[in-house]
């Protein structure tokens, strides 16, 4: 833990930094590949919709009351699922009253239906003519339910954009958040299609859970971004740098949160996939696992770089960018701005870049400067150093302290 904590501190101060924002094209490419696979899986394999969406067949099996219990129902469920018929791979089997069991499957062909009836007879030993009645059932998740849920979703997304706009004062963050959410949801749907799990109302709620979690996580990261970029001039950073610092500062949180959120879901996925056979628990936990992981990934690797990307065209951000670049150049080579002597050189030339750097460097404040090489030599001989260092914030007392310089540096 000690090392991790040390890393946490270094990430916080910016000593160590992973370039999330700068290498955005890498992350975009990674996500694009994943998305192509997901959407490809979706379009090629298609989603396997459950009985709730498609309707299907229903077999009511009349049984003596000592047989019409939950155990027989469980047995029937497994037997029907084991027939290998794709549309009957996750049947709904319930007891009804104390004299019948109801088996529901997705729509079947006549041959498949006959096979199901055979299976039921095999398991329960009932008379296939008299004791099994076949029926057609409609979907409980009709067009209307889907439509109303979509309306709800749209209202929510519009509300979300308004909320982010009001809270962060930045509509580009809303775009970033929406892209991240779409990314997560698409990946989850793709995984669903590729694995071939059945889409049930349970998976729809799973998808909505992911939607909520992804946005939640993105907002937490954005909050830090907003905090760091509130005053770019004072923090002497470009927007991209500030945003990157924010992601790094929240990285420990992101890792912890994803661990805490993924552990329970992962355990459920493991238990249901290993111990239980066909179960909606497995589908649900898979959706949740993939979606949660994608949610954490997208807020760090997609949402924040995208916002920085979108903002890179704003004049204020460009300005900060230019200043940061100039500063970096001046730090790397203090003599770069000293002009080479030529005959007709004017006596005194001012390059505004160098000027600006110096002018900004003059009031020393904040903790960031202490780690950078002091620009002491840069201006020597050309500009008069300030008379005295102004009072500065001290870490120890939390209030301003007068500074005292060595005698040789004091001006008499």
């Amino acid at each position, binding site marked *: 833990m000690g090392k991790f904590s040390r890393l946490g501190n270094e990430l916080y101060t910016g000593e160590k930094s992973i370039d999330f924002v700068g290498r955005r094209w890498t992350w975009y490419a990674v996500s694009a590949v994943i998305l192509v696979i997901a959407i490809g899986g979706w379009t090629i394999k298609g989603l396997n919709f459950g009985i709730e969406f498609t309707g299907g067949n229903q077999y009511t099996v009349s049984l003596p009351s000592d047989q019409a219990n939950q155990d027989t129902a469980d047995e029937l469920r497994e037997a029907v699922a084991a027939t290998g018929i794709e549309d009957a791979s996750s049947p709904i089997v319930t007891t009804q009253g104390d004299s019948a069991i109801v088996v529901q499957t997705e729509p079947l062909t006549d041959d498949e239906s006959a096979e199901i009836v055979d299976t039921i007879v095999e398991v329960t030993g009932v008379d296939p003519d008299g004791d099994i009645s076949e029926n057609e059932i409609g979907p*409980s998740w009709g067009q209307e*339910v889907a439509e109303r*849920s979509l*309306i709800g979703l749209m209202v*929510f997304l519009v509300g979300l954009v308004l909320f982010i706009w009001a809270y962060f004062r930045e509509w580009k963050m809303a775009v970033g958040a929406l892209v991240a959410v779409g990314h997560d949801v698409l990946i989850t749907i793709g995984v669903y299609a590729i694995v071939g799990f059945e889409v049930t109302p349970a998976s729809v709620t799973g998808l909505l859970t992911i939607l909520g979690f992804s946005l*939640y996580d993105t907002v937490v990261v954005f909050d830090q971004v907003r905090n760091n970029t509130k005053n770019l001039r004072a923090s002497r950073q470009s927007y991209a740098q500030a945003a990157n610092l924010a992601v790094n500062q929240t990285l420990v949180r992101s890792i912890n949160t994803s661990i805490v*959120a993924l552990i329970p879901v992962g355990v*459920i996925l493991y238990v249901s996939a290993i111990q239980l056979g066909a179960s909606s628990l497995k589908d649900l936990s898979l959706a949740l696992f993939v979606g949660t992981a994608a949610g954490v990934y997208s807020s760090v690797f997609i949402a924040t770089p995208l916002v920085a990307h979108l903002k890179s065209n704003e004049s204020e951000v460009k300005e900060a960018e230019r200043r940061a670049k100039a500063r970096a150049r001046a730090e790397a080579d203090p003599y770069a701005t000293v002009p080479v002597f030529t005959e007709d050189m004017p006596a005194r030339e001012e390059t505004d870049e160098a000027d600006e750097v110096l002018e900004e460097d003059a009031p020393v404040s904040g903790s960031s400067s202490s780690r950078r090489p002091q620009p002491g030599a840069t201006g020597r001989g050309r500009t008069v150093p300030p008379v005295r260092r102004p009072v500065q914030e001290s870490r120890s007392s939390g209030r301003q302290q007068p500074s005292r310089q060595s005698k040789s540096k004091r001006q008499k």
Partner: protein
Amino acid sequence: MAKKPVRPARTLMVFFLGVAIAYGLVALNGSWTPSLGLDLQGGTRIQLTASSDPSEESLDEARSIIDQRVNGQGVAEAEVTTQGGNQIVVEIPGESAGELEEVVKRQAQLRFRLVACSDFSPCGSGTQTPQNPLTPSAEPTAELPEAPQSPNRPPVGFDRAADPTGEPSDEPKQDQTPSGGASPSEPSASESAPVDDVPGVDDEGFTAPVDEELAWSQAPDPAVVQLFEQFTCADDGTLQKADGTPATVAPDAPVTVPAVDDPSKPLITCEPAENNPGTDSDRPATKYLLSRSVINGTDLDSASAGVPQNEVSWVVNLEVGGDGQDAFTAISRALVGSERQFAIVLDGEVISAPTMDGLITNGQAQISGNFTESSANALATSLKFGALPITFADDATTVEEIGPTLAGNQLAAGITAGLIGLGLVMLYCLLYYRGLGLVVVASLAVAAGVTYAMVLLLGEAANFTLTLPGIAGLIVAVGITADSFIVYFERIRDEMREGKSMRVAVESGWVRARNTCLAADAVSILAAIALFIFAVGVVKGFAFALGLSTIIDVVVFFFFTKPMVSWLARFKFFNRGHKLSGLDANALGVDSINLGTAGGRA
């Protein structure tokens, strides 16, 4: 920073008092296990069979109306499916409540009609109107004071009526009733006897002009009155012929009976007997002759159950909007101050026949009667979502218990897995945050306790049931809840890295962490509200659970975790940076921490 002195212990005490009250309420309810959903516990299956052969559209429409009715009273996540072309299957978690079958099955065709005669008031007994013709044969319509409008002006509400015969009904026409007598007070009575091809009702949306009906109710057709005399009422409110068989009339008769309830004909029907043991409000079943329908249930804006101020009995409040509101105002104006009644007719049966005590112009009506809380709620729910386009055969309805749709081992496996997962989460928090990890563990435990109490209480109040997705959602919510603590603790550590002492960092970190969490939770709440309002069924249940867990997250974070940390910050173990507190220099990754003692480091 806060002007108020921080009093963590007091906040904690108030919080636990609140939790104790919640559990007290649970104890009052007396059920300590949450109600489980269809997939985990099974429930009741009501199978309804349409009495005629409905079209696919109307069956589907009926399905969605029933869906709204069963899910409209809470978030029980009932399932409604069509089956085999003429059946609707309703599956509801848990034991069937008494009124449920009625809520589901009732057609809920509501109409307002005017009372012409009843057992208590002889026909045409508009005693306040001197012009009232006792022998109505020769009275011209236009002179009736109840119809003050010029004959040329289209009467109120008339334009809505899609005339089944395609003829404007204010055009006088020769009466076709078998009696042959002219219907003096109602020029359009002829139209009220269209020859139906089918015994059913062609036009459910028919409304008759109010002023015509007002006039007619003062002086009904003698032929109709004659038919009226032929029937009697049984105590349960069924209309019978003299020999005790259910009433029927020929399709071309000038009147209709409850079984058909044609809105474009006068209705002969009954109000069931009222038996209130111990009071003197007993009343035998009452027979009514009612006018054509003047307001239909489609004009209802809303319906709700409630107890009016200063009263004790339950009523159903109706709000009539649209054209119905104008009609209602006209009725109110004509009937106010008189003894004349109008009748609220539900599925052909009079549920209330009040007089107008005051002038009502805003369409607010009230059905009072022999309601209990549950029957008033059931009726309001049935009315709210509109009438079913089909009727169901009474004898073909089956109600049966059904078992859970998921194998029994799934719930157990899910819960075991969830518990193992929670254990691992707590272990991780303890390893990483050490002393502060205890706060996470305690907070999660408290959140779990509050959630359990809320699930129990809401199971009682809003029919909230736990389904497997719901349980999985609650487990994911653990992640979101724990995230609040993680955000807070990371903030505290960041503040301490900047050189603040623990006690200061706890407060300054709180401000930032609080804002972050509120913003993030606002997103969740937004999702919950939007989905709860607009979505139905499973998604609605999900929205409810999401909102619930988010609110609990905020409450626990504000009223438990924060005071707890503030309180712990007073102990040397934490504020001096003990090795196991999770806030020592090593854990923060810095060389030394500020111990917050005046005068520098000791």
